[in-house]
């Protein structure tokens, strides 16, 4: 088994996959805790579908690097979704549902009508479930991933205390001079960026799992915000690494293997939490 792994790691694309996987897992888990606590998990789900729609458009237009199109579109959608949550007639969750299924349907329709690929359902499947995307990353993709995820982590560290304050109590934060709206915007933009990155790893349907499972698992075990964040980061990285290795050895799809790991860990944490609380 070790020899097989050694052989695989002599290929650069496998090393790339592991680096990118760990970085994505780390940045998505940092964000996950805030999203779960702010009841924003559904926004992550909606945005991932928007990203799918954007990929379809990029494919149809024949753009060579999809991320260049998908990143700005998804960030824009995040900003719009946050706006609609507040003042409009269409309420937050309905708006998210509308935009997400709309993007999904139109995306598939576009791909169906204009795609020149001979294996359409294969393309769609890999976009939705991320089956092989991680192993076919170009070096530009890898660089974008590294830069964006490092950026996400730096922003998170710099604004850690403010993000905590805004997550725990938006009204109080706003009243005492923090611009909660700005931080919500910041959180939405980072979420969009993380989602676009995570599409490479697990595909657009499974992104939410990557974001929420480590956070929920950590919340079963720890009782302070910092401990929950740290634990969530560790669990997420461990699951992603294990998932990638298992998928290489057992030739299973990367995305769903990682998510399966996350689910397993969640069940474990849930049991440990139940038992230790007695």
């Amino acid at each position, binding site marked *: 088994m070790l020899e097989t792994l050694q052989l695989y790691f002599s290929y650069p694309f496998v090393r790339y996959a592991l680096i990118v996987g760990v970085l994505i897992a780390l940045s998505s888990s940092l964000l996950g805790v805030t999203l779960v606590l702010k009841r924003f998990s559904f926004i992550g789900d909606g945005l991932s579908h928007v990203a799918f729609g954007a990929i379809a458009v990029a494919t149809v237009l024949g753009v060579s690097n999809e991320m260049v199109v998908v990143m700005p579109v998804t960030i824009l959608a995040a900003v719009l979704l946050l706006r609609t949550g507040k003042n409009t007639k269409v309420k937050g969750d309905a708006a998210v549902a509308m935009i997400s299924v709309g993007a999904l349907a139109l995306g598939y329709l576009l791909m169906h009508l204009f795609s020149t690929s001979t294996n359409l359902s294969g393309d769609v499947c890999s976009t939705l479930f991320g089956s092989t995307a991680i192993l076919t990353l170009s070096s530009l993709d890898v660089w974008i991933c590294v830069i964006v995820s490092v950026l996400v982590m730096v922003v998170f560290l710099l604004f*850690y205390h403010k993000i905590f304050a805004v997550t725990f*109590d938006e009204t109080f934060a706003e009243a005492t001079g923090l611009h909660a709206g700005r931080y919500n915007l910041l959180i939405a933009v980072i979420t969009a960026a993380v989602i676009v990155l995570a599409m490479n790893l697990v595909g657009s349907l499974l992104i939410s799992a990557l974001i929420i499972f480590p956070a929920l698992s950590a919340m079963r075990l720890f009782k*302070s915000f910092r401990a929950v964040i740290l634990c969530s980061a560790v669990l997420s990285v461990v699951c992603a690494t294990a998932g990638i290795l298992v998928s290489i050895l057992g030739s299973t799809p990367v995305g769903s293997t990682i998510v399966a790991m996350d689910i397993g860990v969640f069940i474990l944490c849930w049991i440990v939490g139940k038992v230790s609380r007695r």
Partner: protein
Amino acid sequence: MAELTVSDVTLGYEGRAVVKGLSFTVESGDYLYILGENGSGKSTLIKSLLGLHPVMAGSIQRGDGLEQDEIGYLPQQTDVQRDFPASVLEIVRSGLAGRCGLRPYYTKAEKTLADENMERLGITHLSRRCYRELSGGQQQRVLLARALCATQKMLLLDEPVAGLDPGASEEMYQLVDKLNQEGTTILMVSHDLQAAGKYARHILRIGEPLFWGTKDEYLEWQKGEMKDA
């Protein structure tokens, strides 16, 4: 000049006025009770005082060196907070976040301030505990310590004893009274007439009819109202 001067204010949502012709002032060191039925516009008034919601007409002026972000707020508990994984220390310190600007960490002086406020409210021994596992009274003390980290000048408390048992309510009232005697202006939103009679200096009644005056004036006025009714 008074810390807050509210003159002829109309409050409401989406063009519909809920309260009209509201005027009152709050002096430094005052203890004001805000009484009113549900739906009388109390929460809109709170938001307007905090600068989170514009008034439809009239004006709310701040004076006596009180800045907009110097009204410490003790909100009613939200669902999010009930199962929030956070230690007492983390929550108390989050009251400092507004004063850091872009600085990403808390200074030593700020951390000391947080420690002092926990000491004042007698929750130092709870600092490592998880917020969601505390009793209702303890949770309120934590939120009070957080508000004091943001400002010592003025506190706005939104029904702080809702859901507390009588003993814990009494403790909470005495604590707030102590803070008031140490110089913090208190605005207390409440249903509790008895406590208002005991602690308030001024009373504001929202709804129909409006009333604002000292506690004694209020009690007189209330007698008159009852006779009329």
